[in-house]
């Protein structure tokens, strides 16, 4: 009996020591508790990883999730205020490579604040950005889980859209001027996964101002006008006089008034399904469409 009590005491002391050591080691490399995000996609990722409560500053463009709207603002996406950032006393500032202001991020670093710029130009990089942000915040498993969840979403859409012949697609933000998604842009990859083929996908620029005649010559089968505030009626009006474009002739001019596919964040999977439903609607019908009534089906025509 006495021996048993001794063993229990011994175990208790050992576990206390272990816990204490764990605490010491954790204290040696504390995960950042006060984080400033310099991009809407970073804000979304931090929230999706479950660390929204650690954000002490976001940009004025960070409007998702709704909690982000209530967080203190540190300025715009292109022009954040260094003062406002420093005033939040962050222990980590996360920005986006090639988008966050290089001089300002340098200034913040000089003031002794840790700045990490993540790269999000391709889908792979976006998935990796979940992992690296999670690692920075001390929970690599959460990053892996999020990356796997989004990968599954992307994969599911890819599987559904795969059997159909690919539709040439124009995806643009704004009609006057016509700014289209070019190559070297993760949205170009999304169009491909959704069963489309970007008509400006061979362009060297990620975004480009397309002349109307190029669109007529490329004859896209689907035209999607993306971005907040885009209206289908406005897009239809803009294109309606160019009836040789198959998308116009067949009524496949759509608007996609959401930022989901435009932001390299955790909602790209959801966004992909939504644009795939526009590009390949046949592949997302709940009732199987057996091709009667002359309707197209979600598979390649048999030779």
């Amino acid at each position, binding site marked *: 009996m006495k021996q048993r009590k001794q063993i229990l005491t011994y175990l208790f002391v050992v576990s206390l020591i272990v816990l204490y050591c764990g605490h010491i080691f954790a204290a040696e490399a504390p995960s950042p508790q006060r984080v400033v995000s310099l991009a809407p996609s970073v804000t979304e990722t931090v929230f999706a990883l479950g660390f929204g409560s650690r954000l002490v500053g976001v940009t004025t463009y960070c409007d998702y999730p709704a909690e982000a709207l209530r967080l203190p603002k540190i300025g715009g996406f292109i022009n954040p205020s260094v003062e406002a950032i420093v005033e939040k006393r962050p222990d980590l500032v996360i920005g986006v490579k090639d988008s966050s202001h290089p001089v300002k991020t340098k200034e913040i670093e000089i003031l002794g604040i840790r700045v990490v710029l993540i790269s999000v130009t391709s889908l792979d990089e976006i998935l990796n950005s979940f992992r690296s942000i999670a690692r920075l915040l001390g929970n690599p498993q959460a990053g892996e889980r999020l990356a796997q969840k989004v990968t599954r979403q992307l994969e599911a859409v890819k599987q559904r859209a795969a059997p159909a012949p690919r539709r040439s697609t124009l995806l643009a933000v704004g009609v006057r001027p016509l700014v289209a998604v*070019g190559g070297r842009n993760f949205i170009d990859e999304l169009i491909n996964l959704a069963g489309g083929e970007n008509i400006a996908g061979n*362009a060297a*620029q990620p975004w480009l101002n397309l002349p109307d005649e*190029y669109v007529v010559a490329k004859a896209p089968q689907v035209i999607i006008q993306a971005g907040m*505030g885009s209206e289908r009626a406005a897009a239809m009006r803009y294109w309606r006089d*160019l009836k*040789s474009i198959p998308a116009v002739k067949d009524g496949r001019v759509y608007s996609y008034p959401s930022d989901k596919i435009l932001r390299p964040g955790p909602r790209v999977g959801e966004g992909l399904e939504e644009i795939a439903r526009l590009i390949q609607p046949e592949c997302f019908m709940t009732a199987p469409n057996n091709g009667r009534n002359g309707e197209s089906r979600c598979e390649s025509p048999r030779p």
Partner: protein
Amino acid sequence: MKVLDRRKMILVNGCLFLLLLVSLLGCSLIGPVTLDFRRAFENMFLPDPNAEILFRTRLPRVLLGIAIGGGMAACGVVLQALLRNPLACPQMIGVSGGASLGGILGLIFFPHWLLPIAGGRLGEISWVPLAAFVGALLSMVLIYRFSLFHGRLHPYHLLLSGVIFNSFIAAVIMFLNSIVDFYQAQGLLFWLMGSLSTRAYLTVGFIWAYIVFGFLWLWTKGLSLNLITLGEEAAMQLGVETAALQRQIFIASALMIGAMVSVSGMIGFVGLMIPHVMRLIVGSDHRLLLPASFLAGGIFLCWADTVARILLAPAELPVGIITAFFGGPFFLFLLYREGKKLAV
């Protein structure tokens, strides 16, 4: 005052007119995509890609380019004479700033509104150029008021108030640009950079009618413009009603500039450079200089826009980049050559 040399007049303007026709044809044929012209003409009214590219996207654009280039150059000529300043250009008198602000407000507050013409039978035009034109008219009135000196339009006051009004407007525009959302801001910047992209023959027709009318009116003032470049006193002694002439020319050119900026944004350099180039080539008799500049401006902008369409194809460049990039060195070369000629 020299008598107008009719032979030179016909020769110069005839050659330029022919060149303009060649440019109209050439620029319609050249683009980022190749066309089958036979099919384009055969299927002129059918939904055929070749026909749509040629008649619906390229031709209206080339026609607009000629009108805007010609109008800008003609306004540049008269403003340089009126203000007796070689740096005067259509962008300088403040009207373009007002038009830009009007257009920007239009883009922010009612980007999708359309005004049906004749109950929609003649198509619709966007409110954005209308808002820009209202902005141009309001700024014209304001600048006119500020430039009055002892009851008459004073060139230096006009120049100063125009430049300062433009910088003020630029600040307002930059402020608006930093409070709108990210994608809207991109759109505003593109609009400000200027573009000749259009498919509306209605708009092109309006602008042509407007500019040709304005140009012809300015042309009738050619002789008086010659006299006014000698100085106000001299012109007055030679029987020119300088005060009235200055007022009329300011209003006429401001109306033209307002309309041009409303449709195509701020396309710089044509209005500054073409008048100087033509002055070096044909001399400074405004009766000859005005039509020559009009034609040369049309030719230049039409080709500049073609280069903007094909240089980085399929991406399209803002045409203002091309006008400055090719126009600037050419102008400096002419200036250098002229300097050497005088030295010899």
